[in-house]
């Protein structure tokens, strides 16, 4: 393991430092809430990038894992009265399980058809949860009153306190992804992405590796969902929508896929753009669209790539 961690440590350290500073010096709750939201979506994006940037599987259906994790945690806490820690474990299991299911169903499909299949599977799940399981999911209206964690006597309803729990989750995810990327498993996954034929010839079991990557990816996405449900104290089938799947793809792309810092930067960029632009102009929606288009044309490696290119040019 020692061999793997070092290249990512500076990036991870920088990010942790940044969010630590926000947590300690933030002037008000609104900033903390936004930073917490960014960390949660970063966990989601990091999870997504395990299957996309690392293993090369473009899924348009990751919202399914995110949303299922959110609902699993909510049900566990609300009707099962379980602790937050147990709910996190359950959400990881639910998200990972759903991802494995997707992976098994899509074993024989790849490329574009894989992406489309994941999109359709996730829509199917969203519809089932919204209409058939209305009693459990609250239907279109969702479920309000998802609790915050209960631990010792700390009031987690105060965002300032919950922030640190999210921060811990964020840090653990960063470390996990960093370690994974440079571990033997991570190397194998990258091989699968870069040249599946060759990888198979070397003796890797491509199907099993892809399934593993999807499972891990789904589990982490599920955990992100659990955090979000608890932060908003609300969960709804909106979390399963294709727009959420699209959002996470966009954020990861903009930040730079295949890196540990990339997805986080992408999330920060999009969330801050949304906040900042809406303060600057009533047309922020359209301006955001233009930014996406420009980034596609001019920034194929995302912001992280841009940073590297700029630095190199010096």
């Amino acid at each position: 393991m020692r061999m793997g961690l070092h290249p990512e440590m500076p990036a991870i350290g920088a990010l942790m430092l940044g969010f630590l500073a926000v947590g300690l010096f933030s002037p008000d709750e609104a900033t903390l809430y936004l930073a917490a939201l960014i960390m949660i979506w970063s966990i989601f994006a990091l999870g997504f990038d395990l299957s996309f940037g690392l293993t090369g599987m473009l899924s348009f259906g990751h919202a399914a894992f995110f949303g299922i994790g959110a609902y699993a945690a909510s049900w566990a806490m609300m009707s099962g009265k379980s602790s937050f820690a147990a709910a996190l474990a359950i959400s990881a299991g639910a998200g990972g399980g759903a991802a494995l299911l997707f992976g098994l169903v899509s074993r024989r499909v790849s490329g574009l058809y894989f992406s489309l299949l994941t999109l359709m599977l996730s829509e199917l799940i969203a519809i089932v949860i919204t209409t058939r399981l209305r009693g459990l999911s609250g239907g279109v209206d969702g479920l309000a009153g998802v609790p915050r964690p209960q631990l010792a006597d700390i009031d987690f309803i105060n965002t300032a306190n919950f922030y640190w729990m999210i921060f811990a989750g964020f840090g653990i995810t960063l470390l996990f992804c960093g370690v994974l990327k440079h571990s033997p498993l991570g190397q194998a996954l990258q091989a699968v992405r870069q040249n599946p034929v060759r990888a198979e010839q070397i003796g890797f079991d491509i199907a099993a590796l892809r399934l593993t990557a999807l499972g891990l990816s789904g589990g982490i996405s599920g955990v992100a969902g659990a955090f979000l449900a608890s932060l908003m104290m609300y969960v709804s089938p909106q979390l399963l929508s294709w727009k959420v799947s699209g959002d996470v793809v966009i954020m990861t792309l903009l930040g730079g896929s295949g890196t540990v810092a990339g997805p986080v930067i992408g999330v920060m960029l999009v969330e801050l753009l949304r906040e900042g632009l809406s303060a600057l102009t009533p047309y922020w929606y359209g301006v955001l669209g233009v930014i996406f288009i420009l980034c596609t044309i001019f920034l194929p490696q995302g912001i992280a790539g841009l940073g590297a290119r700029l630095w190199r040019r010096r």
Partner: protein
Amino acid sequence: MSTIIIGLSIAMLLFLLSAGLTLIFGMLGIINFAHGALYMLGAYLAYQLSASTGSFWVALCVAPLLLAVTGALIERSMLRPIYDRPHEFQLLATFGLILVLEEFVRIMWGLQLRSIAPPPSLSGSVNFFDTDISKYRLFVVLFGAAMVGLLFFGIERTSLGLILRASSNNAIMAEMLGVKVSAVRTGIFALGAALAGIGGAVAGPMLPIQLQMGSTIILDCFIVVIIGGLGNIRGAVAGALLIGMTRAYGQQYAAEWIDIATYTVLVATLLLRPQGLFGVRLRTA
């Protein structure tokens, strides 16, 4: 009886949109997530035209032309640089396009729900076998059938269609034979956009014209295109008919299960025959 007509009218609307989507994918290799937004733009433009000129027919003729121009502009400015980029970038770019188009529509027409009245010759209903069938729906069915015929004829029988097919089959060869492939590409996207515009104009008297109309229909279009086969017009017809009739008969007998049934059929298709009913197996990895 009315169920059949209604199913066919849904099918025709879906076909108009899916034809454009499948052409764009088949011949340009681009998944146009913004196709629904183009349809929305078509509907709003048709609304404006029919409100200003008082004539639905003017709207039906002019809106597609405006969309064709818009499509050409989009293709030259935005799509040209990204043709060989991987699919995730197409998602990013077309999502961005959706935002831009929706903002434009919102600036021009606000949040108010809009509506187009069907022309006087097509309002009201006729009585067939003891059921009232809307005249406008009949028109949609006939008009849609005419468009199907026109498209087939255009692509399979004319020299323009030949150029289209040649450029998509083997662009380099076509280029060497003197075809301006880049112009053909612009033309194809413009055609797809125009079809979306026709869809929007046709939908105007049947459905509410609102900002979200694009997002609600785009998934249906994807379903049709996948079932039919990406890039295949025959497939788009078959897929549209399948989905249209499923929805119509589904509403007749089990309204709550339509969506689930549709998506399950779709997933099954992707697993058993991913190239669709009529498609050719593409190298997609």
